[in-house]
């Protein structure tokens, strides 16, 4: 009997990545919501190095770091693979997943937390990154081809949360005009069945970001609640 548990936080895109992968593979799991201001003893025990979510627990054995967890899931449950079989294509997917994780996400995140002085510069960097992604997507439906793969999963923040937040904050970073292919990808992505089941409620997401932000630095309590790096730490 497989026992799978996921320690997560409702708004974390890193947790969403893991959940989407579990849903794609039809794996039954117990989801445990963590209070990041008061982390459970189990979380601290299972991830002593970082003390962060997500942590996957499989038959009592903990795995931390979302990208590491995704690889583990794909190697352990071989149905509906999220990585290509061919080693070169697999390497390409890993490269792009890293690009989204290490270059795109921080750039987009910075735009949300910008003061009005910082916004234009941060926006320029985010636009540059999105352009690279738009080019890579090309004519494909998903980064993974006909079905979603690791790159799509890791890019879930771009597909859903970022568009929701930027609309609430009236930002103009990721627009349909500037990135038509990526926009279409986002629409297709959020409508995929495994993804739809994992997305945080839109109104709850918006409620966490105050509408009046320009000119103010967002308070650190938001940063700690979302357990994501503060501006400058990205």
């Amino acid at each position: 009997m497989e026992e799978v548990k996921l320690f997560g936080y409702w708004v974390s895109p890193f947790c969403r990545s893991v959940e989407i992968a579990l849903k794609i593979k039809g794996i039954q799991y117990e989801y445990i919501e963590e209070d990041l201001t008061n982390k459970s003893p189990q979380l601290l025990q299972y991830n002593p190095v970082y003390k962060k979510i997500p942590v996957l627990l499989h038959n009592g054995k903990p795995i931390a770091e979302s990208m590491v967890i995704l690889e583990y899931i794909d190697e352990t449950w071989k149905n509906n693979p999220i990585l290509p079989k061919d080693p070169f294509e697999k390497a390409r997917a890993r490269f792009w997943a890293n690009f989204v994780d290490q270059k795109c996400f921080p750039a987009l995140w910075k735009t949300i937390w910008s003061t009005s002085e910082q916004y234009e510069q941060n926006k320029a960097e985010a636009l540059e990154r999105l352009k690279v992604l738009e080019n890579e997507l090309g004519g494909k439906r998903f980064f993974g081809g006909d079905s979603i793969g690791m790159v799509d999963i890791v890019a879930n923040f771009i597909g859903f949360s970022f568009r929701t937040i930027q609309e609430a904050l009236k930002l103009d970073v990721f627009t349909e005009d500037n990135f038509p292919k990526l926009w279409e990808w986002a629409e297709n992505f959020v409508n995929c069945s495994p993804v739809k089941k994992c997305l945080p409620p839109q109104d709850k997401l918006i409620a966490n970001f105050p509408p009046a932000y320009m000119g103010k630095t967002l308070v650190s309590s938001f940063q700690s609640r979302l357990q994501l790096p503060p501006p400058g730490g990205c």
Partner: protein
Amino acid sequence: MEENQGVKLLGFWVSPYVLRVKWALKLKGIEYEYIEEDVFNKSPLLLKLNPVKGQVPVLVHDGKPIPESIVILEYIDEVWKHSPLLPQDPYERANSRFWAKFAAEKLQAYAWEALCSRGEDHERAIKASMEALEKMEKELNGKKFFGGDKIGFVDLVAGFISYQLPVYEEIVSMKILDSSKFPAITNWINNFLNHPLIKEELPPKHKMLAYFSNRRNVILVQNSSNK
């Protein structure tokens, strides 16, 4: 670039990212052509093979380019299955990937920061480096290598600790690799540096001292003019 041209590696002599790949190729006995790049004056070839980031290393296998050192290591391990770098068991593989990521993303970054900063930032970076090393000390837990009896994935990625960190220490007169605090790591460093294949493939110390001293000075000037 012609198809079926074997294995080529674009690199830079002092890059720890490139060195990981060289060591992996050597451990697996894979013949390759090495192409030295000047990363401060990138060739059209490098920019063509890695258009997104323009960085070394890039492995080229039968005409197909693979950038990013850790992605390359995974690729090498999948294509040439003898002398595996990663364990077979998925959980053990996840553990190796976790620690490789930790060494590459945390320890390496803190060590670089310790080299290229002054004052409070410098002190903070030393502290962070030592805390990271403490975690790796625990993970090593008396084993000869992170990979067990043989050099594995984590050893290759963390290898910079053995030969590069002491150079940083010398340049800035700091102490991170305290053998009384990190006996297992100290032992590992000796085992790693004395491995016959690793020993042959290390950048010359005097060149590293000059290179990293220069880099430190350039970055310190850049940072103070940016403030």
